[in-house]
């Protein structure tokens, strides 16, 4: 999750997640507008498994990254540049792990 405005964020998956999934064949989003926390808003398709995407907070979806429709494998090469959705949410970044805390947790 990357802050891009006062209340706006880009959201995607981590390098750790893309490595666990392996080659990504398809990314699908099935929600729009205002959505609640912990709601399924899409899925990432690996070679032989589908991983559900769950909203981390109550938010409003502003945009979907359509580049991923054409080439979902971008996520494998550069997960932090290819965001999935941009959202607007009244949350504080402190509620989530930052990059350093996350790396510490996953290593």
């Amino acid at each position: 999750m990357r802050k891009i405005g006062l209340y706006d964020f880009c959201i995607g998956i981590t390098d750790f997640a893309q490595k666990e999934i392996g080659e990504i064949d398809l990314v699908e989003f099935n929600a729009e507008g205002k959505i609640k926390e912990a709601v399924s808003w899409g899925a990432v398709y690996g070679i032989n498994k589908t991983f559900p995407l769950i909203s981390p907070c109550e938010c409003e979806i502003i945009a979907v990254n359509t580049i991923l429709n054409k080439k979902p494998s971008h996520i494998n090469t550069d997960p932090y540049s290819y965001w999935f959705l941009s959202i607007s949410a009244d949350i504080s970044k402190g509620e989530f792990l930052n990059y350093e805390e996350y790396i510490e947790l996953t290593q």
Partner: protein
Amino acid sequence: MQTIKTKKTAFNAIHHILGGKMVDFAGYEMPVKYKGVNHEHEIVRNGVGVFDVSHMGEISIQGKGALPLIQKITSNDASKLIPGKVQYSCMPNDTGGIVDDLLVYMIGQDDYLLVVNASNIQKDLSWILSNNSFGVEIINISDSISLLAVQGPKAVKVLQKLTDIKLKDLEYYTFTIGEFASIPNVLLSSTGYTGAGGFEIYIENRYAAHLWETIFEAGNEENIEPVGLAARDTLRLEMGFCLYGNDIDDFTSPLEAGLGWITKFTKDFVHSGFLKIEKEKGITKKLVGFEIEDKGIPRHGYEIWNLNREVIGVVTSSTMSPTLKKAIGMGYISTEYSNIGDEIFINIRNKPVKAIIVRTPFIKKSSD
């Protein structure tokens, strides 16, 4: 509590050194991929790739009653075999399902080798032993045999450097035993489950490291690469080949699975009467191939729907085809909906996703 130790093949250390991503597969620690599934798939379709398939089971059947035993337990007609020929077959159970699918190698008179799926070795052994009323010697030699599948259009060129055996003369589904890479008594078989052509090489475990090294040296110019089991699955699925545990199992009939061509009623085998009746009455569901028209990739166990969202079948295998760049799959479906070109819907995360029934294989064989 009993802990089950994951078995390792004789190539295990090599997989680790080469950076293979290792997973537990049918009780064995096996490489699922190295550089990437799509890349490895491509290597096999257009060049040459090497799979460690030593986890497969080998059962030796020897003695005067060997052929009668094999005739009793398998559905194909093993009397058609001659030494040096291989036959794809299946072992029907006594409830209309399949114990396993397998390869039957005729080594010589009263001497056969059955090659079975890793996950079924013990089940198959018990089943064969329980049917052995012929006094046949049955030995599980799986743990002493290593098996490499060298697959792809360039496999002949690479392997020919290592033997005097004329590999081009080995027809599909035949084998020979001879010297290969200075190793004596190697069983070289023109088989494989990729549809890309190539060979399977059976050796004793102690020669494994030498064999691997020699093959990779010989294949250097052809850019030979190791391939993991994930690409084996995408390759076999593009050919419409069944995978035990996915597309066939103890509860699916060989006739429903489209394996009528290896179900020969010219002889009696376990429960053949039941299958004969099934054939005469006609099957109510069958295994078909489909291509997804919309977005989504189904997975094993997903429901197949008709237009009214009624369940008419179930998905058994599916993947994004690296060759066709679209999602393909197989599944059992009521025969009335199973014609080529019929439109079906697959329940992907509670949404009907359109698919079309197509003929398999999904792609042409490399040699076609």
